[in-house]
């Protein structure tokens, strides 16, 4: 990452709240699931920005809201300086060519009645590539890149294994040569060897086409391998954003620290002691007061139960949202409170 890089995507205070319905007729909104609750970050052109965090913390919702597959409750999204919220439908459709998504659940996201070749080719048709020969050439090229044989292309999604379906989704996202790909757990269904092939492919394409990725994953070793900068999410918020090596060498947020301690070591005799977080996973519809992580935090101070910290740069390329690094928190420590 260098200073001169351009910002490709800027997300500002993004929120997505889902209503929880209830009441006798199921039509009363009882409360809201705050799936994404004020997330801000920037993605530079050509970089890979990783998003990690606990299951249910809002990673997929963030990705879908950026693409406006879900309407944001609040906040702004700028792509190449244009505010996506202000685009009309047809402008948004053109823009979708530049932003593609690889969905987390390959089974649910592929149309079961379409042949695989038509699924992969569809974006080209949508974006007006009329020349059949050209489409065919692109189709065979991406199919080959993700390891699908021409014979497999005439089959239907249900005839494929989980990992093969994931590759269909990746091929579909790649075919229109987008600028930004939001890859939601793109390799989690793949075995390590294919996983390496796909990651190597994604990296090659990045170099060749100057692609930018938002890479959502819970696999910390893959994220470390593949991403330049990483955002750690907890309960709908970004709690830490840092350049990859800084994060892995010195996680600042206690949640990030716990998460990284849980990295598996791939050998049966080297079982590691993991920090298993104490306390219940809190509810995103009724998050704890103050810092939402405080009930599970080993360094919790008084101020953490009342004041919500914000994301602040504490070092070069390293921002964290935690009272251990705020003035209020430092005062608390100085007053002799146990940390």
């Amino acid at each position, binding site marked *: 990452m260098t200073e001169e890089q351009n910002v490709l995507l800027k997300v500002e205070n993004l929120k997505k709240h*889902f209503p929880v319905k209830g009441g006798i007729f199921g039509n009363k909104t009882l409360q809201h699931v705050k799936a994404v609750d004020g997330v801000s970050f920037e993605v530079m052109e050509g970089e890979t920005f990783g998003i*990690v*965090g*606990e*299951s*249910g913390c809002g990673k*997929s919702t963030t990705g879908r809201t950026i693409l406006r597959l879900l309407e944001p409750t609040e906040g702004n999204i700028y792509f190449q300086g244009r505010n996506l919220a202000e685009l009309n439908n047809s402008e948004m459709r053109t823009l979708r060519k530049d932003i593609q998504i690889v969905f*987390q*659940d*390959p*089974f*649910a996201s592929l149309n079961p009645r379409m042949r695989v070749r038509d699924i992969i080719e569809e974006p080209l048709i949508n974006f007006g590539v009329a020349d059949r020969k050209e489409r065919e050439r692109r189709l065979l090229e991406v199919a080959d890149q993700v*390891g699908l*044989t021409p*014979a*497999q292309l005439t089959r239907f999604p249900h005839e494929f*294994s*989980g*990992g*093969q379906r994931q590759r269909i989704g990746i091929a579909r996202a790649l075919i229109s040569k987008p600028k930004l790909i939001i890859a939601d*757990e793109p390799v*989690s*269904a*793949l*075995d*390590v*060897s*294919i*996983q*390496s*092939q796909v990651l*190597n492919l994604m*990296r090659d394409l990045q170099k060749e086409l100057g692609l930018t990725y938002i890479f959502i994953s*819970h696999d*910390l*070793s*893959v994220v*470390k*391998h593949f991403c330049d900068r990483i955002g750690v999410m907890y309960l709908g918020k970004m709690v830490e954003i840092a350049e990859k090596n800084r994060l*892995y060498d010195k996680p600042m947020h206690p949640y990030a620290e*716990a*998460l990284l301690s*849980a*990295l*598996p*070591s*791939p*050998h*049966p005799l080297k*079982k590691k002691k*993991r920090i*298993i*977080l104490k306390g*219940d*996973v*809190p*509810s*995103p*519809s*009724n998050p704890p007061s103050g810092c939402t992580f405080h009930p599970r935090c080993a360094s919790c101070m008084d101020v953490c139960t009342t004041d919500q910290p914000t994301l602040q740069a504490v070092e070069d390329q390293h921002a964290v949202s935690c009272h251990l690094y705020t003035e209020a928190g430092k005062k608390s420590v100085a007053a002799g409170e146990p940390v």
Partner: protein
Amino acid sequence: MVQRVLEVDKLKVGIKDDGEKIAIVNGISFYLHKGETLGIVGESGCGKSMTSLSLMGLLPPGVERHDGDVRLGDLHFKDFSKKDWRKIRGKKISMIFQEPMSSLNPVYTIGEQIMEMVLSHEKVSKKAARARALEMLKLVGIPRPEHVLDEYPYQLSGGMRQRVMIAIALSCNPEVLIADEPTTALDVTIQAQILELMKDIQNQLDMSIVLITHDLGVVAEMCDRVIVMYAGEIVEESLVVELFDNPKHPYTRGLIASLPDVDEQKEYLSSIPGVVPAPGNMPAGCRFAPRCTLAHERCNETPPLFETESGSQVKCWLFEEKKSEVVAT
């Protein structure tokens, strides 16, 4: 002798194409001891899910068992009627499916789906079944479980759906659990919690587990013994430590070498070049030979499983001299 709770004998699963039988799983045999965790690893598309679905009598339409048998304790699977299956599934043998969305019913709430499983096996009241459902959701670490009970699958995140599946599979304390990629969608902290839960139930009830995963970290953590599959066949069977320290089959070696190492910076990961051959289009002889750097003339013939000194079994000619042949396949 340790009791074998599950025995698979020359199982062949496949499809029919123009009346011609094409094998997806090509005559595999293995067993599972009581209380044991057996891992199955192998390249995407090699037939792991088809193997596990056939153990549950749940092969998708068009795919069928062509040959071989499965024994569950003293029950012969060949003789099962639909009604027998209903009694067995969930109680004697239970499965966590690879794709939660394909096995959760979109029009029923999460609570209804867990309760249905409980009510079909136990004579309990609806209220008790609902209480059990709530308890299961808590056990798998779902936040705000009281609400999620009344929500539909589409309202949950990928990892939450996977945990609901796990809750359903474990709700009736099965004797044998088939877990097909049970933790792929889960982050490490929740993965650790789920693996602990599976181990707890295993210890309490002496449950036996077949664990299918591509995550070798999970294999290292959970398994006693491991089967490596390639293109519908078993190519290696080893105790877990042996598999990591001394992988034998060239495919297994490639797999272990592809692991990303967190302590090392590499621009590209090593991988095994090429792709698995498709069912119906298998090379003659050793199926891995076209991608194998050690392939030689002998590999035009199909190797049997050879037993090595360490007790591993390897389907590769390189191990021919070392020990005598065990099973001809």
